[in-house]
């Protein structure tokens, strides 16, 4: 896992580098302050180019989810659950991830991002219930 690896481009490379360091950052427009994701040069609100990375809380709400009952990607377990999360710090923004809990999500449930180290070269952002308290620091719940 995973069968498909992200291919960072000139817009997204900085984002993936931060994810690898377990930082959750989005872009903040230097002119109007609007936060945006995914990473790109222009602010859609004021159409200017200057920006900074801004660390924000990886928090959101469950908007939808699917339970994959066939292996759409080689190497993934069957079934596996993908969740669509409405990100709290960035209005209008949706993100995806595998679900890290042993029960299904609930509609509108509050969730927190959790970094999953896939292998030496790749770390991704997954989601787990906000209420999950790890037994040991940095422990992730099992994948759903």
């Amino acid at each position, binding site marked *: *896992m995973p069968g*498909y690896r992200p291919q960072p481009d000139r817009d997204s490379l900085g984002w993936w580098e931060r994810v690898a360091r377990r930082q959750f950052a989005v872009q903040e427009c230097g002119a109007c302050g609007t936060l945006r994701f995914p990473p790109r040069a222009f602010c859609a609100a004021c159409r200017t180019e200057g920006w900074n990375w801004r660390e924000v809380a990886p928090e959101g709400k469950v*908007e939808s989810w*699917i339970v994959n*009952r*066939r292996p*759409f990607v080689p190497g993934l377990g069957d079934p596996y659950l993908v969740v669509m999360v409405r990100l709290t710090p960035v209005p209008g923004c*949706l993100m*995806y991830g595998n679900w890290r809990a042993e029960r299904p999500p609930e509609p509108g449930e509050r969730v927190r991002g959790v970094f999953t180290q896939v292998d030496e070269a790749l770390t991704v952002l997954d989601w787990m219930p906000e209420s999950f308290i790890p037994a040991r620091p940095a422990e992730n719940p099992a994948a759903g």
Partner: protein
Amino acid sequence: MPKRLLEFRDRTAIAGVGYTPFSKDSGVSTLTLACRAVLAAVEDAGLSPGEVDGLATHRVGDSAPPTLVGPALGLGDLSWHLDQFGGGSVSHAVVGQAALAVAAGLAETVVCYRAINARSEFRMGGTGRGVPVSPEVQYQAPYGYVAPPQQFAMYARAHMLRYGTRAEHFGALAVIQRANAAKNPRALMRTPITLDDYLASRWIAEPFRLLDCCLETDGACAVVVTTAERARSLRRPPVLVSAAAWGGGTSHLSCDDPTVTGAAGLAPRLYAQAGLGPGDIDVAQLYDCFTYSVIVQLEDYGFCPKGEGGPYVASGATALDGELPVNTHGGFLSEGYVHGVNHIAEAVSQLRGEAGDRQVPGAEVALSTAQPGYVLPATSALILRRA
């Protein structure tokens, strides 16, 4: 609406339709399929191939463009052509742009086609192709979230959570469309199904079962666009292009409400162009890559209130004898998947009164639509009218 748009309404017409057989393995190239469908459409219109001066298609790197089809059919110097990159959301834009080219006088006879070996060669989001090329894919592919049934299932559940849409609503739609396909000799799947058959079909990506998903099909379909005036002198009853509209949609990474599609923004422009409203539509061919996409379009094109698409279908309103017959050919779910062009061709058959056992009596106005704007933020649609 700008006044100059009125000059577009009913200026052009669809004068012919052509098909290859639909199958799971055509055994031939997409170039061959395209040539066969183009020639069949030209023959249907009563034209000779030498009179074709424009070709247009849409594709996702999986078929023959006009620059191959033109020379293959000896068409020489085409005065207009279009090779539109894109999936089902641009299927109706291609015919709309051909109509614009004809209305503007850039070409007189344009054949719009789609050839596809979607089962035996290039399966959508499955084997036979890599990850789509959009840079946004990097934020979903690592999670094993790549294929259209997954993405539409995600939106379907959002609709279920928000409006109480249920599996039985999706199932009712699948049952109705199969009943239509049973009356369509071209359809790949003609054995009637019940709601129990639907509920028993295997899971693909919950909430979608196998019978929520369109067929993967090899085949081609084409339509001939020319001026309304010329169409009147040809072999077949002309079907006028009353309106063609383009719209946006939702990026899968930013969208305030995933239960509303780009069709909701496009619909008022489309109806205004035609000078018609939802109540004037006699038959609708709505893009059905999955059951859910029809339900959300019934809402966004104004046939029922927001959130009531599921109960509307379950009431029988979209059956052949209902108030708005939908996907009378069986759609992608049961006739075959030719990426939108077979919906346009079926609308033409209905308006000509040539749809046989599945004919909607007295059909004069048809709506035909593209993928409503999920995933790729674009959509398109046509209103067609019997001359």
